[in-house]
């Protein structure tokens, strides 16, 4: 078993380290290319932008870019909520599902628009094919692309020679879909369908739920969305039929977030910096996987059982994946802000569950969401530059731009808001009357169920300790608010920083104030991520997973 675990982990990291730079280079090229051109994709791109009524030459400063982000979010939520609330009257509903109630529709809409993909609903028992294919699937694409767009805007802020323009949000988002997400999704969904993932618009025989799953599963992995077509998500045989599809989907989860590190290196002409960020993320990922594996390889026993049970903790895990792929997936999906699960995290042993929570609590910067993971990591990098600057007594510079009071303020806001949402949200959730009746497990593990939910929502992850029945008006509303805060309260500060940096002229071309070239910088960056995460969340982790682990 350990052999399988080690090889799979090494192969996964090797794929990211080899394919990541190539894809990263390609992404850097297509996001930077001038509009127009003779290729088919360029023509599709221009045609679609014309259909949308976008003027591609219009440049946006950070405020206009932010307004566009907020508008797309708001309209996306309204449209998606409305589709669900009238799905009973729409076509492509062979099971005849009813309209979704308001609080659930709103929660699901926010969940998909913010790239969280938290599921308060049960896929195959609540949502029609129309809602899944024409409501949710487009938001899988749009929310991921918007993450790349905001990252791109930030890059322009770094690169700009004192101009306020950050590009055009609509163009950036469209580009990311047409050039990156859609082609990769087409390839992946056809591969999946050939391997047993269902893709049909008819109703399944004898109560066997089927549907257009392959097309949605492909983008849910590539776009770090994670919302399953079926309730059991990627543990369902129709979403993930064998260990090979499992490994490919696993690579798809991490591929674009990893590649974007290398794109970033190209964009800011500091390949070493992109590589450095990738390595920091990989170290955290590998450590997380190791701890998770060492927890789940042990078979939990029950008092009174008269035979020895062997084979690890298989509760909530699928036989075809076994322990190794289940723990690698659990760590990757919580690291990458994906949130699709191939095993039920609630049934992990306490330390295994702790890894999945801790890696979210670090702020979804260990690869993190498409675009969003990297820009959150960059916030940490800027904080590190600031702290490093204090240590050596110089005005800190990040990639040639001075980090001053304005930027530092927004960095702190962007880093602190999701944590504030987690702890605030947890406090509110715990005083909701009857919260304990929503739990499946008692004691410290019950607290972990609620903690996991708020961590997942406020960091836009979307996975769950699914023993918590979150489909109540109170929890749906609370988690909806947390998801919005986790998305916009990071995106908007990032854009504000980009705006601040864009109008500064780059400093004199000396390395004196630039500390990002040294190995020490990355050690400091890793330490700051750990220290901020630990200081914020240690007390509540002691009451939840750590107490749970110590008692057993």
């Amino acid at each position, binding site marked *: 078993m350990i052999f399988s675990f080690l090889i799979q982990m090494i192969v996964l990291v090797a794929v990211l380290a080899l394919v990541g730079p190539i894809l990263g280079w390609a992404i850097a090229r297509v996001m930077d290319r001038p509009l127009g051109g003779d290729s088919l994709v360029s023509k599709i791109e221009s045609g679609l932008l014309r259909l949308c009524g976008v003027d591609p030459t219009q440049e946006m400063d950070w405020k206009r870019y932010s307004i566009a982000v907020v508008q797309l979010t708001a309209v996306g939520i309204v449209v998606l909520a409305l589709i669900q609330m009238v799905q009973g009257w729409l076509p492509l509903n062979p099971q005849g599902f009813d309209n979704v109630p308001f609080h659930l529709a709103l929660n699901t809409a926010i969940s998909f628009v913010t790239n969280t993909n938290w599921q308060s609903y049960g896929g195959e028992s609540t949502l029609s094919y129309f809602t899944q294919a024409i409501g949710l699937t487009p938001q899988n694409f749009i929310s991921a692309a918007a993450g790349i767009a905001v990252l791109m805007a930030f890059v322009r802020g770094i690169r700009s020679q004192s101009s306020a323009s950050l590009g055009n949000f609509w163009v950036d988002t469209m580009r990311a879909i047409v050039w990156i997400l859609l082609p990769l999704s087409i390839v992946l969904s056809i591969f999946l369908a050939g391997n047993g993932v269902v893709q049909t618009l008819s109703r399944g025989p004898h109560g066997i739920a089927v549907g257009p799953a392959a097309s949605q599963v492909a983008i849910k992995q590539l776009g770090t969305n994670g919302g399953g077509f079926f309730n*059991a998500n990627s543990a369902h045989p129709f979403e993930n039929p064998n260990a090979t599809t499992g490994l490919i989907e696993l690579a798809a989860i991490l591929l674009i977030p990893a590649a974007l590190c290398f794109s970033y290196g190209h964009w800011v002409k500091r390949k070493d910096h992109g590589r450095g960020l990738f390595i920091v993320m990989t170290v955290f990922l590998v450590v997380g996987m190791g701890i998770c594996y060492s927890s789940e390889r042990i078979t939990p026993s029950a008092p009174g059982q008269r035979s020895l049970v062997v084979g690890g903790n298989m509760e909530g*895990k699928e036989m075809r994946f076994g322990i190794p792929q289940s723990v690698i997936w659990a760590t990757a999906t919580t690291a990458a802000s994906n949130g699709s699960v191939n095993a039920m995290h609630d049934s992990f042993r306490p330390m295994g569950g702790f890894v999945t929570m801790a890696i979210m609590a670090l702020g979804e910067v260990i690869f993190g969401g498409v675009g969003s993971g990297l820009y959150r990591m960059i916030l940490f990098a800027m904080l590190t530059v600031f702290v490093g600057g204090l240590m050596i007594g110089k005005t800190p510079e990040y990639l040639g731009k001075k980090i001053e009071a304005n930027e530092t303020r927004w960095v702190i806001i962007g880093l602190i808001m999701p944590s504030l949402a987690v702890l605030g949200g947890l406090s509110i959730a715990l005083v909701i009357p009857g919260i304990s009746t929503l739990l499946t497990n008692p004691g410290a593990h019950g607290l972990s169920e609620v903690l996991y939910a708020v961590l997942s929502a406020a960091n836009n992850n979307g996975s769950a300790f699914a023993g918590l029945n979150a489909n109540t008006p109170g929890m749906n509303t609370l988690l909806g608010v947390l998801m919005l805060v986790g998305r916009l309260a990071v995106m908007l500060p990032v854009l504000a920083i980009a705006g601040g940096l864009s109008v500064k002229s780059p400093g004199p071309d000396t390395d004196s104030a630039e500390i990002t070239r040294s190995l020490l910088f990355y050690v400091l960056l890793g330490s700051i991520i750990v220290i901020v995460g630990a200081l914020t969340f240690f007390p509540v982790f002691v009451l939840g997973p750590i107490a749970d682990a110590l*008692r057993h």
Partner: protein
Amino acid sequence: MIQAFRFIMVLSVLTGVLYTGAITVIAQKWFPFQANGSIVYGPSGTTSSLLIAHAVTNDQYFWPRPSATTPSYNASASGGSNLSPTNPAWQTLVSERVNVISDTAHVAEIPADMVMASGSGLDPHISVANARIQLFRVATARGVSSEVISALVDSAIETPPFRWVGPQVVNVNKLNILLDRNVQLL
């Protein structure tokens, strides 16, 4: 706002209607069996999927892993137990399952997949060790020697393309079909 609305509408057509539609057409043309759920029709007119476990209680067949859906093996509402191994309810449930097996089959070790519920509740696979424990029950119930059933189990073992990708497993649905083809029901 109108800009955002138009943008979403255009992309709903592109990535909702056209993308889903195109993949559906391709999948239905190239992989109709897989795309429709790997459905097989049994001799007695039964319809089932090779990839979805269903309830089996007859001693003459192999049984899938425990399922935590309501009711068990509910193919239209998948899910796991979400019980923590630290939960007394889980411990009671699992020790009962363990003791039922240790009372009927005389084995030193029970594979975990035999007593712990799967994530989807529909896991069609069991471990090889699980199948080897069950084969004695099946052989007795069908009145044949255990060697016959053991050979069938061996032929049903599925190995991933690379040994490290995943464990060797036995698909219960396929094994039971194989069983009916080769050994008569009593």
